[in-house]
């Protein structure tokens, strides 16, 4: 008999409302999602509901409706079941700026219930991995934005979490630090679930196994990275146009990338049909898929085709 794969995190019909002026607005609407070990890239524009979902999954906020199961156990009813196995890096967080990096991590380790000897060893390793050893004993108030972000990443990894939730973690990191961070996530991804929320598609393209795309509180796409790219494979075009045509093309189609070439411009276009007879088909990227599913021009191109 074939053994069924255990779903580690199972989100069922999740909805969350908040008060906006006099009206209740849905931050998340009937969202269902199963997260398996590996990296899940959560994409969506600002205000799509990613951070609200992250706070709910991190057991900070209770949702208005729906259920979340971690290893088969309801974590809305019993959030403590998840918290000891959770690593969370919120989009906005703070530190005790009077403490040194080590002191702050010792504090967070204490909050996560780690004993001193394990904590100290882990802290040393993480500071080394995140290139913070030189500043380990300096007060956090003197840290740069990127260094504080790396301290945030370190605290999320302290308890060797089974579920790692990271919300916009690459904000404030320089290109080298971003590459290091992606490498670190890839190393960690083997036996744990990592949910990586971002609106920078390039950050997840090379490392995510699955991609979830959110828009106005709803999950509009959930697939493996390759399948998602395959879905738009016949919709990706390359067109070299003049600058005078550029404005009209940008108005009519989804332009995912543009590159200046002398007095012309090379455009990557995503559309259900060939935008111009000069256009040639090209290989799809995750950014193409993301823009295709989140842009309102998609419906527009359908309409243009019909007319």
């Amino acid at each position, binding site marked *: 008999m074939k053994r069924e794969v255990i779903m580690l995190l199972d989100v069922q019909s999740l909805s969350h*409302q908040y008060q906006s002026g006099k009206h209740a607005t849905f931050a998340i609407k009937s969202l269902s999602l199963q997260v398996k070990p590996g990296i899940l890239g959560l994409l969506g524009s600002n205000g799509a509901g990613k951070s609200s979902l992250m706070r709910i999954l*991190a057991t900070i*906020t209770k949702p208005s409706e729906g259920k979340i199961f971690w290893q088969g156990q309801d974590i809305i009813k019993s959030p403590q079941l998840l918290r000891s196995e959770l690593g969370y890096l*919120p989009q906005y*967080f*703070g530190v005790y700026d009077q403490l040194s990096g080590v002191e702050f991590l010792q*504090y967070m380790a204490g*909050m996560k219930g780690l004993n001193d000897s394990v904590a100290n060893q882990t802290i040393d390793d993480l500071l080394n991995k995140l290139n913070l050893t030189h500043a380990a004993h300096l007060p956090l108030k003197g840290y740069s934005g990127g260094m504080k972000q790396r301290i945030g990443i370190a605290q999320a990894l302290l308890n060797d979490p089974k579920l790692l939730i990271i919300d916009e973690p690459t904000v404030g990191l320089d290109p080298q630090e971003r590459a290091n961070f992606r490498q670190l996530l890839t190393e960690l991804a083997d036996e744990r679930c990592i949910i990586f929320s971002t609106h920078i598609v390039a950050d997840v393209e090379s490392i995510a196994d699955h991609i979830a795309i959110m828009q106005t509180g709803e999950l509009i796409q959930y697939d493996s990275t390759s399948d998602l790219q395959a879905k738009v494979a016949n919709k990706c075009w390359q067109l070299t146009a003049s600058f005078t045509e550029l404005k009209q093309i940008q108005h009519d189609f989804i332009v995912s990338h543009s590159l200046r070439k002398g007095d012309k411009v090379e455009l990557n276009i995503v559309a259900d049909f060939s935008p111009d007879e000069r256009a040639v088909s090209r290989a799809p990227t995750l950014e193409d898929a993301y823009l295709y599913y989140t842009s309102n021009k998609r419906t527009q191109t359908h309409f243009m085709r019909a007319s």
Partner: protein
Amino acid sequence: MNTLWQCILADFKQRTRQQSFIVTLLSMSVLTLLFFPSLDAQYQTLVINGYRGIYNSEWLGICLAMLNVLFLPIICFYLIKNGLELDRQSMTSELIAATPVSKLTYLFSKWCTNVFILVCIVLVMLFSIILIQLYYGESYQINIWALAWPQLVFVMPMLLAVASLAIMFESIKWLKGGVGNVVYFFLWTASIVSTVESVSGIGSLLSQIEAEVAELFPLQQGSTNIGINIANETEKIKTFIWQGIEPTAIHLLGTMPLLLVCLICFIFAVIYFDRFSKNSLPENKPTSWLIKTVNTHVINRLDALFVILAKPFSFTRFLRLELKLLLKGHSSYWIIGLLLLNIIQLFISQQLLVSMVLPISWLWCVLVLSQLGQLEKQANTVELITYSKKSAVLQSLASYSAGWVVLAMASSGSLVRFAFMAEWILLTQIFIAISFSVSLAYFCGAFTGTKRMFEILYTAIWYIGPIQAALYLDFFGVNSAASWQAGIPYYFAAISIVLLMLTVRAKSTH
């Protein structure tokens, strides 16, 4: 256990490594030194029937305990009521909320840190009185036990309760902010009487010392005082040697009510603490008819009028925006309350208006005024404001004037009434009182960057001044004739101008 210890350690380090903590310790030390004046000083503090004990360890220990029991609850509460706020403001709360730490452990660690901070303060005060004893040299025999036991028996239980109260106030949504600060002030004021008259605490101790003095000097007819009292030239304070007392079971039993308060407050804190989660589904209450009417017929019309009035000058346009900024976000019930107070001002007797209703109308505005001077810092818009403003002075004056308009609106019933009755002196007093209140708010906000300082200081001055009619703190002049005779209105007008100038200067320098 490790979780608890790490929580306490980090919280204690974070709170005590700030410069303000050192300033607090130094201030408490200075306060202690001032509480024990020499015999020929201009003021005296603890005088029983015209006598005070020589400054030996027994007398100093008991006096320090009395000082602490009376004044530490008010000073320390506001000092430590930021344990949870610190985590919220620094956004460390986002990280803490996702850890397995329980509400009980987290709050208990905060309570322990509060207690440790308070113990540090008492230790500094104890060290200061040892210096006092050696400095005055009325007795060189240092008896550590005699100095310490009154602090352990009388002060410590009170500190435990204050630490718990601070946590409870921070955990309950509506007590977290300015309302809580004002509520606690009145709670403390009400508790002083019961503290002094208590049968097991310092009340009984005071009676015991009084009886002892009466027995030693039966013919003496001097005054008794346990606060700051200006020395009387004719009544020279005499000293006697007080041998002290030992703690008894009754003293220990007297701590029980405070320990119970401590426990109950802590339980309430655990129940009401939201563990930094936002309310998932706030109630969507329909707007009441009253609120709708007030919004349409009063607030919107007033704003429309302000728009027309403000149009001609950039300063007035600025003033309208500053006023809007101050009033935005406050409940419509606050406006309704303001309207009611104004109506009452028109019809109540003048005596009651001056002594009660007008001061209450000003207190009604304390949470609005406390925003002055620190809004940019709280909203993190300092840099945006700095680069965009045309003139720092203009912006400062517009902010000040907005506060002035708020208090003028709160007093408009009285202003109309006094103008109609040609009570020009009372009108002048109102102008000075408003100017002083707004200057103080602006000064406190700009220099401390928080609302708390003004909320506490103003409530205290308001209570002792206009309400209790203490001449030198009565910025309004409830006893009009006496106030003018002593030159108090001039004095407060001058303070208002100085505070405003200092604040404008500080804002411009920024």
